[in-house]
């Protein structure tokens, strides 16, 4: 009888262990979607930064530490976008936590060639970290997530690979659609608030000629706004793209003065209405730019 009970207990334990999901916390909502896409029903995913928040400035909340406390993986953008992450990781007191840096195999833009200091504003020393807004870079992110999920659960490797393939297929199809929409717009000049869209514009052949911020992370000044308006007029810039979390007062005034259109662009999944997943997010940005060009 005792042996039977013991066997049952072991079997029940194994069954429970078999059903246990890999707990993943991501910094951004976009990464949560990618992780869910690869991990499928083998993962339980949560994220820290809501799409409507600026990921550069996140308050160190104990509730974030609690989320990481029982996680297997913490998936991050890296390149010091999540400069706040080490305190949350330390506060989680999770000895088994694996921190995943998705930027490992991404071709980085705007990597400083000189020593970075605060006179340059908030320049990221490892380059511009907004690489997830180029859909082609999502493939490198998915691969990094896959590699780390396999580390935690090698038995599910094939399942994860097949999920990744399916997502990539969908991504390729959408990419063709976006390229088709954007190809007539090659060389279109625009101004954005921050350097959030460097990878996006590079992919679609657009050109950012200036920023509302005089330097990354530094609020706009009247003199810089005047210079920017002059630059926009002389370069024929008709679009000011504004990230979802910035105030529109100054960019709106700049757009009016330069005879341009102010459009809201989105940097993260869920940041605006109609950006519930990554495909909708890129759809939103592509269509906003296409309509702005047509309208002007």
């Amino acid at each position, binding site marked *: 009888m005792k042996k039977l009970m013991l066997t049952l207990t072991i079997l029940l334990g194994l069954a429970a262990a078999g059903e246990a999901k890999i707990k993943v916390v991501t910094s951004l909502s976009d990464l949560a979607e990618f992780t869910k896409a690869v991990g499928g029903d083998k993962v339980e995913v949560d994220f820290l930064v809501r799409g409507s928040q600026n990921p550069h400035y996140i308050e160190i*909340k104990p509730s974030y530490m*609690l989320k990481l406390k029982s996680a297997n993986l913490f998936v991050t953008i890296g390149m010091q976008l999540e400069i706040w992450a080490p305190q949350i990781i330390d506060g989680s007191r999770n000895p088994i936590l694996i921190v995943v840096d998705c930027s490992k195999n991404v071709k980085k833009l705007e990597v400083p060639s000189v020593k970075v200091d605060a006179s340059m504003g908030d320049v990221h020393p490892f380059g511009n970290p907004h690489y997830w807004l180029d859909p082609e870079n999502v493939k490198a992110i998915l691969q990094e997530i896959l590699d780390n999920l396999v580390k935690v659960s090698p038995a599910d490797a094939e399942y994860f690979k097949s999920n990744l393939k399916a997502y990539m297929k969908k991504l390729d199809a959408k990419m063709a659609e976006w390229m088709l929409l954007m190809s007539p717009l090659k060389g279109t000049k625009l101004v954005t608030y921050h350097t959030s869209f460097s990878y996006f514009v590079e992919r679609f052949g657009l050109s950012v000629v200036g920023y509302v911020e005089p330097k990354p992370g530094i609020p706009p000044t009247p003199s810089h706004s005047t210079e920017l308006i002059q630059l926009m007029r002389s370069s024929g810039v008709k679009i000011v793209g504004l990230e979802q979390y910035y105030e529109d007062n100054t960019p709106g005034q700049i757009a009016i003065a330069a005879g341009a259109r102010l459009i809201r662009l989105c940097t993260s999944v869920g940041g605006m209405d109609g950006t519930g997943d990554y495909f909708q997010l890129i759809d939103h940005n592509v269509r906003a730019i296409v309509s702005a060009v047509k309208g002007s």
Partner: protein
Amino acid sequence: MITNRLKAFTLVFVCACIPILNAQTSLNPEISVLPRFRLESDDGGQLPARRIFSRPEFRIEEFELAIQSYINPYARADVFLAKAGAGDEPIEIEEAYATFLRGLPIGLNVRIGKYLADFGKLNMLHPHAWPFLSKPLSLERFLGEEGINDLGISASVLLPTGDVLYTRLTIDVLRGNSISTIDPAADLRSGGPGLSDTLSSEIFYANSGRLMMFLPLSENSDLEIGVSGLTGIHDPYAKLRFYYSNIDFKYKWKPSAYTSFVLQGEGLFNSRKMIADTDARGGRSLQNLSSGGFYLSGDLQFSKIFSIGARYDWSQSPYSTTDKAEGGAVFIGFYPVEETAAFRLQYQHTRWMPPGGETRAVNSIALQFIFSMGPHKAHPF
């Protein structure tokens, strides 16, 4: 030949140095400098004869140097050196401690060194992170100007209270020399010098602890509640003990990136035995004393660069229930470029009500300027 050898040696030396330099760069601690400057005037100097604001005094309030780094995969160290004023004031070790973050059972974190104890909400926070310029009266009178800042060992653990409620318990054993005795004859206007040194010949350890709970109320609002206790010897001659208990809360509502409202308060309760009388033969009779104080502050950020707030203070003395002080302050914060530079303007009105004495009111206006260099980490919620 010699020139070639020299060139070759130089090349080898430079090549050999590159990885060393890189390694040193990555191993260097993070160094930050945070000076606080203050321009202040008050009308207390001429009282009670005349109420005239003094000539504004411009001074270095404090110069803080923070050196922070991991020391190995399991622990990090934080050192804060501070110097008040631009004169001959000594450089003091404000804090110097190592925190063992990993490798201990049940997720235990252990801190060893000299540090600000986890007591109440404000004690651990450096003044540059306060929204106001002055320490609340209750904390100044009961904990002293430096707060509970002592040599000690601290252990903290997260309690299993589910996936939503964050609960942390911290217990400290402190050397006790910053929290031993208050000179009752101290200047009443300033609230006394706080907690001075014990007898150097004898050490009286103190113990403190805090239970902190953090609860997200909604996507945009959070609540933190804390309960703290501290006990130690306040009279090293008669070996008389004091007990402090403290409740604190902080509510934050942040509906957007540039709008937030923080409501924060602390109530401190003091219980201690005191010598009531001494007879001719040296016999002493003791009395129990209970007193307390509290503050309540609100701070509204209404744009990216501006915030405005107010605070109300009320406090008795650690040694008397009839020695009271009451005050209010309004303050404005201006943060022109992120958090690397801050200007704060504060008007404060304080009434000192000594037992049997004349009530005195003091008004002060102060402008503070803070800048920060280096990667000093953001302060937690």
